[in-house]
Each structure stands twice: as structure tokens, then as C-alpha cells.
């Protein structure tokens, strides 16, 4: 059974799967090869790092919020206080097998630079983000003429940390622009279930509430 769990650092309400883990994080963690080296950018309270640890992954994290970092470090996770926009530059090329950005892309100042750094630092990048092309969001703007607010994105326009929303199609375009190869993509419905794998992009873009992409550098 899926249930709505209390607020985490980026989203007010999040769908959780059996065992209480966020479904998008479960999707992300399944994309990671066991035993690999991972950097989780915007790791929040360390939930994903914990999931990955259980898979024998050597995980590191970056988190902007002081509370998140201190909670992680007190749990013994290797997390540093830092900013995806400025601190990725200090990491060397190919330092990790995977660099993960879960539900943080839309809060960065320069999303394209962040993705490019991720592809430089890691052999793979995994990005999950809320899809602004979801039909409910489209309908809210169309019918009410106001900035959409949903269970996953509850903040008003003036206090949201999310400054760079995109749709699945938009993200696709940017991946092509930065020369990223798409290895896997999954769109999730509001209940966290993966949409049909062979559905066309327009379908995902309309019915996917969030998306998870596994990218790698084009050789």
C-alpha cells in the first residue's frame, strides 16, 4: 500500500512505497550497480544514501541545508555542506560511477551546468525531477490562470525554492544539447507507479508526475 508521508526537505508530501522509502528514490537506487561509488547531490536527510548503503554502495553526499547535512553526518554518512551550483567544480573528472540529482534540478540556478558537471564527475548521471508538463499542472494554469500548486509542489510562487521547472520533453532536449546519452528513462504516475515503458514521449509528458533519467556521456 502506498501512503502519503510527512514533509521532507524538498517536497511537502511524497509517495512512499512498501518499507517507507520514497518511490522515486527506490527507482533511482535500482539504477545503481551494487558496489559502485556514488555522489548524491542534494541528498537531503540522507535517505537515498542509506538505501544505497544497503546495496553495498560507497556513497557521498552534498546538501545545501545545514539541518540536512548535520543530520546525515550524525548518522555517519559522508555528506558535505555545499551547493550544487558552486561546489561540483571542486570534484575531479571520473571520481564516481554515478552522480545523482534527485528532485533538486529545478532548485539549481544553472541546471545545464550542473548536469554537465555531473557527467564530467561521474560515468553516469541519474536525474529525477517533477514533470511540469503533467496534465494537472497544465489544467491548473489553463483553467485558473495561476501558478500551479500540487501535493508534490505545494509552495506558492513567491516562496518556492524551485526556480527552474521543466517538462520531460524539455529535459530531453537539454540532454541532446549537452551530449548526454540516455540509457534509461522512467516516468512515474502520482502513485509512484512506472508508466508503460513503450508509451510515446507525449504520453509520459502528460501523465508522468515525475521522471527519472539515467544518463551517460556520449563517447
Amino acid at each position: 500500500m502506498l501512503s502519503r508521508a510527512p514533509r521532507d526537505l524538498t517536497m511537502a508530501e511524497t509517495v512512499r512505497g512498501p518499507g517507507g522509502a520514497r518511490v522515486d528514490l527506490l527507482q533511482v537506487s535500482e539504477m545503481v550497480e551494487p558496489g559502485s561509488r556514488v555522489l548524491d547531490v542534494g541528498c537531503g536527510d540522507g535517505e537515498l544514501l542509506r538505501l544505497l548503503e544497503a546495496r553495498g554502495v560507497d556513497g557521498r553526499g552534498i546538501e545545501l541545508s545545514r539541518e540536512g547535512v548535520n543530520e546525515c553526518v550524525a548518522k555517519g554518512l559522508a555528506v558535505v555542506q555545499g551547493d550544487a551550483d558552486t561546489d561540483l567544480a571542486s570534484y575531479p573528472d571520473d571520481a564516481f560511477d554515478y552522480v545523482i540529482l534527485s528532485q533538486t534540478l529545478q532548485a539549481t540556478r544553472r541546471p545545464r551546468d550542473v548536469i554537465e558537471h555531473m557527467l564530467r564527475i561521474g560515468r553516469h548521471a541519474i536525474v529525477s525531477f517533477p514533470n511540469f508538463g503533467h496534465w494537472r499542472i497544465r489544467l491548473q494554469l489553463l483553467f485558473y490562470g495561476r501558478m500551479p500548486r500540487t501535493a508534490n509542489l505545494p509552495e506558492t510562487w513567491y516562496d518556492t525554492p524551485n526556480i527552474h521547472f521543466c517538462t520531460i520533453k524539455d529535459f530531453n532536449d537539454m540532454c541532446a544539447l549537452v551530449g548526454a546519452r540516455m540509457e534509461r528513462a522512467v516516468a512515474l504516475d502520482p502513485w509512484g507507479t512506472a508508466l508503460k515503458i513503450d508509451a510515446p514521449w507525449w504520453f509520459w509528458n502528460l501523465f508522468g508526475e515525475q521522471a527519472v533519467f539515467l544518463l551517460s556521456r556520449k563517447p
Partner: protein
Amino acid sequence: MSTTPAKAETKKAETKLPVLVREADHPRSQLAVFDHRKPLQLDCGVAFSPFQIAYQTYGSLDAEKSNAVLICHALTGDQHVANVHPVTGKGGWWDIMVGPGRPIDTDRYFVICSNVVGGCMGTSGPSSTNPLTGEPYGLDFPVITIKDMVRAQTMLLDHLGIDSLFAVVGGSMGGMQVLEWCSSYPERVFSALPIATATRHSAQNIAFHEVGRQAVMADPEWRNGRYFVEGTSPRRGLSVARMGAHITYLSDTALHRKFGRRFQDRENPTFSFEADFEVESYLRHQGSTFVERFDANSYLYLTRAMDYFDLAADHGGVLAKAFKGTRTRFCVISFTSDWLFPTSESRAVVHALNAGGARVSFAEIETDKGHDAFLLDEPELLGIVRGFLDSAGRARGIVR
């Protein structure tokens, strides 16, 4: 200055041997003595011997010798980290952090803390007796560096038969030693906690130290460092140095919250230079208690050692090279209101460690208590240190 040796002898006989000289030569601590066969090789080129290291230990070393934690003390600290201080009678300077059930748990770890070389609590320093003259070294003591302090600590560990440390922990000047350990002896450090520190002393910090040193040296009783021999004491100079330095350990907010503009035991200003304000009275107290337990020449030597510290310069100007290939687990901690060792300094350490692919945690703790926060009851600090050590202990197999 014109005191003849004979006169000095009489004076020395008249005054009771100062407690600091006694503590320097015969400390109430465990002692490791190294003779001429094992000199301490100093950065200034001197092979120093004989010399001794005074240290305290807490807890017990496990059979594999894998649970040793070295605590490096700060500028005015000493080895009495978690026991009653033999000179002041007060509790240990890090009682809150070190002890049974504390974050650095002496039920689990074998904790070692040694007085730094150049200090005044029993490890060789300027107040120790020079065997060649029978008088305290004073300025004849060689100038030492952070690296020298660490080198001395490695000799202590060899003496104790400990190859590898589970953790090296320290704040401020202690944090500098931690970083030096990780750079010079990475294979001997499993995990490291540099707190409220930096890889180099900033121009501002050197400037503050210089003011402190000038205050000591301007005291006519300093006598070019020969005050013990001449039976004087540069109390006022050292006290002023301490007062100035103490301000840098706090923050504007903390000072204001603690004292505001309140008067000390009076309703109105006295229109004099008495300590009208509480903050003045507090600083004077800090100064006068400090001189009871600290040697003025040690203050000169240790501030100098901090000034000289520049880890990047030792590695061709590239800090990342100082930690290249390190396998040590790091936990770097800074405090928001620390303007002496601001977060930017810690962040530079973290970036250098990231560049080397090190396993590093970095937390900035929100507090208005300034640099001194690392010594205080900061629940987040205690939680982070405990969590980090627990996790490192599991990785090392000493915590189940």
C-alpha cells in the same frame, strides 16, 4: 636587564620555584623521555635532545591496538583534556566531549592527549630546564612548528607501541595538527576530525598574534625571556595578550548577549579607568587567571608555530596535494559565528579533499558563540562527533 648572575642566583633562591617551572620539568602527568639517541628533528634544523613529552591517557588500548584516539589541544590547552587540572584544580578542558559515554567514549576508545612541544605543562618548552645551563631555556629554546608538534606525537606513539590511530581529533591549533597528521602520516590515521581550523594562518590571525606577542615583550618584567632566572613575571603583558586574543574567540553577538553595556557592581560610571563595564571586568579576570597557568614564552612560541603553518605551501602551493591518495575518513566541522577560523577555511579543506576523492563529511554548525564554540556544550557538535566516530568505528570493526 643588568642583573648579574650572582644577584639572579640570590633572587632565585629567595622566590619559591614558580609552579610553572616545576610543572614544566616534573609534570603531574605520564612522561615519555627521549635522550640524545632519539632527538626530535625540528623544522628549523635543530636536532633537539634530550626532550620529554607529558601526556594523559583515558580508557584502555584493545588487544589489536586499533582503538587509539589522539586529541590535539589548542594554543592555550594542554594534556588535561578530561581530568582535574593539576594547576587550576578545574575540570578537563573537553570534559563535555571526552569521557565514559561521551562522544569520544573512553569506554570504547583509548584516548591520548599530549602537551605540545613548546608548551608549558611538562612537554619540553621554553620553561623547561636547559640541562646545559641549569636554567629554563627561555629564548634559547628553538622555534617550533605545527609539524614539529606532530613529529613529537609520532615519537610518543612509537613509544607507546601504537602504529595506527583510530582517530585524530582537535580544534583550532589542534585542528592544524590533525591536518598535518593527515598530510604527513596518512597511513597512521584511520579517521580525522579537524574542527574550527584552517590549513594556514590568515594575515588577520598573524596580526592578532603579533599584537599578543608585542604585549608580552613590551612588559619590562619579560626581561628578554629570562623572567624565571631574574625572578620577575611578565604577568601584565601576557594578561593583555590573553585579553586581546579572548575577544577573537568570541563573537559580537555572544559578547553582547553575555554583557551588553552593563556596569560591574555599580549603578553609574566612575569617571575613571576602573573596570566599569562587566565586559572589562570579565576580560581582566580572563587575563589574570590565564597567567597563573600559562608561560609567557610558551605563548610566544606556540603563536609563532601557528603563524608559520601553511599546508599548501608545503606542497607546492596546491592544497589538494597535501591529501593526495588519502584513505583517511574526514569529518570537517566549522561554526557560523567563528570569524577567527571562518567556514571558508574549512570549505577549502573540503574542496581539497574532494579533489583527492577522499571520504569527507563537512558540517557547519549554527551558533553565535564564535570560535570557542568547539569547546562548549553544542549539542549538534556532540551529535556529529559521536555519529561520525560510531560510523568510522563500525568500519574499523571496533564498534558493533
